[in-house]
């Protein structure tokens, strides 16, 4: 081990060049949850992660990459798809969530199926209706694919093409995908003014929505049952499937609302085609059940009451969360 350590410090022999990258964290954002000390960002690590994100080798058919369902211009969601299609056109049961601000999250996927970003890619890669592949096979394919040996050697000190470095590179790329340059952010930083209706929408949002859609991430990261009538064909119990506790049944992670205007359809199962439908649902269609979130229960009234005029204002505010800088940032694009 000592010998290894000494060799490790004499870099460049094997092409490893460690150009550190400092993560720029917006001042109004919460603390970074991803441990950057364990997986320090480097130019080559991030670039390898980007390449892997857009490589179909992660799927059994070689055709489905992460980017297939996580399209940049829709904040890395699968636009127009209630459920995304994986290999052989198989269809999943959940709507593709955006890939953004991953450095700040505690749990990943609609049901919090994993609590660590490094482990997250294992889920879509191994899921039958997504990439239907094994991590071992992915690594074998990468070993045999031209260019990757060099890229891994340049990105990591030990240079190995293995599952550890594969997942660390993907994490490095995803950690850098920060969306924090929407009109809302400029407003917070006193760079622009809101229109009257946007201002009104913000006030309504803070009053009616922000207890769950909290912080600059617009999610408190908690799991809640928001009163959707379960789809009997799917009977997706959400968080309850992960933890095995009945008290978690039908709970899903509160989604971030950043770039919400471009990430439709909405809800974990993509049942609503518009933000109008979402707000109408909270106004009149919340269904009671044992695990319904207490915040949606006010005496005998369920849901979040809004007038038609208020809904227009809230949506005007939600539109200020669209971050065109992020949606077009070439650092995150397929090249």
């Amino acid at each position: 081990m000592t010998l290894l350590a000494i060799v490790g410090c004499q870099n460049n022999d094997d092409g490893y060049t460690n150009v550190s990258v400092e993560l720029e964290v917006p001042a109004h954002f919460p603390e970074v949850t991803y441990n950057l000390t364990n997986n320090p960002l480097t130019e080559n690590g991030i670039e390898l992660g980007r390449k892997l994100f857009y490589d179909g080798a992660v799927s059994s058919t070689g055709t489905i990459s992460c980017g297939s369902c996580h399209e940049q211009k829709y904040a890395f969601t699968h636009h127009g798809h209630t459920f995304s299609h994986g290999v052989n056109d198989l269809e999943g049961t959940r709507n593709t969530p955006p890939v953004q601000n991953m450095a700040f999250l505690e749990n990943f996927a609609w049901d919090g199926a994993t609590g660590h970003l490094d482990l997250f890619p294992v889920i879509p890669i191994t899921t039958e209706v997504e990439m239907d592949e094994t991590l071992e096979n992915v690594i074998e394919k990468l070993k045999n694919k031209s260019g990757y040996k060099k890229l891994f050697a340049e990105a990591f000190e030990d240079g190995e093409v293995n599952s550890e470095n594969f997942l660390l590179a993907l994490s490095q790329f995803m950690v850098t995908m920060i969306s924090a340059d929407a009109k809302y952010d400029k407003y917070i930083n006193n760079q622009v003014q809101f229109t009257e209706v946007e201002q009104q929408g913000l006030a309504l949002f803070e009053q009616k929505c922000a207890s769950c859609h909290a912080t600059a991430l617009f999610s408190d990261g908690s799991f809640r049952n928001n009163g959707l009538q379960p789809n009997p064909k799917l009977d997706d119990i959400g968080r309850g499937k992960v933890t095995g506790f009945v008290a978690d049944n039908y709970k899903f992670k509160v989604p971030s609302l950043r770039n919400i205007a471009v990430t439709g359809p909405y809800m974990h199962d993509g049942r609503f085609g518009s933000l109008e439908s979402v707000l109408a649902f909270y106004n009149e269609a919340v269904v009671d059940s044992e695990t319904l979130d207490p915040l949606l229960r006010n005496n005998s009234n369920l849901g979040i009451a809004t007038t038609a005029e208020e809904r227009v204002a809230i949506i005007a505010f939600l539109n200020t969360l669209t971050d065109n800088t992020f949606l077009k940032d070439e650092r995150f694009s397929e090249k």
Partner: protein
Amino acid sequence: MKTNFLKSILVSFSLIALASCSSDDDGEMDNVNPGQVTLEFDSSFAGNELILGAANAANTNGEALTVTRLNYIVSNIVLVDEDGMEYAYPKENSYFIISEDSNDALADNTKIILEGVPAGEYQAVKFGIGVDKEKYDQGLSGAGDFWDAASAYDMTWSWASGYKYVNFEGGYTTSASGPVGISGEDFKVHLGRASDEVTNYTETTINVPAGSAIIVNEDMAPEVHIITDASALLTAREAVSLEAYGNAIMGGEGAVIVAANVPLVFKVDHVHNNEAGNSSH
């Protein structure tokens, strides 16, 4: 059970290599005349040998188990000496898969060899079962081959991505007098992290039998024989009926009860204080 020597997968997190630029001089206890300690895990079932594929007597729930797999992760090993002083094996190298699996493609792992243990007379072994929150929170950093090895032994979850701490599988029948009379149902008990709040990671401390000790120095290579009672996973502290949980315990209350049983299933049966270079049995 198989008693031939089977290579233990010593799957080490390679943090040392990653942290190679920092000095290791962090004021650890003096390591004079270090020796090697072998922990051997020997599975039993309620006092008898565990024979994979063979039916055992019914437990207190009236369920008679036939075990086909008993795999678990042993971690964070600490040796405690007669004065209560603790030697913690380096954390980055302290994750091991112990396995007995009826899948012949998977070699059984029954031994953990600890190298460079400071000389001393140790009275107890302390270890974790599973992956602690600190290690989980490190993600794949320094995981080396451990994730892949765990995956090969079916010790990872992919739908809820993380490690299985215990993978205990087989079939069972209820006793003839039982009310339902299920016969030949498969069962699966998979223990792992449910959430940050319910990690299901446990630790145990097991003493060596009175009058003995694990004697470590440069001339000695002691072997500690630990018995793992598979039956006690479902009975040690609180009885868990497989039937009551629909033959599958993978989370929820069932997993919490099994996790509370886990620390009680291990005991040190005996210690061989072998001279280095010799191995008894």
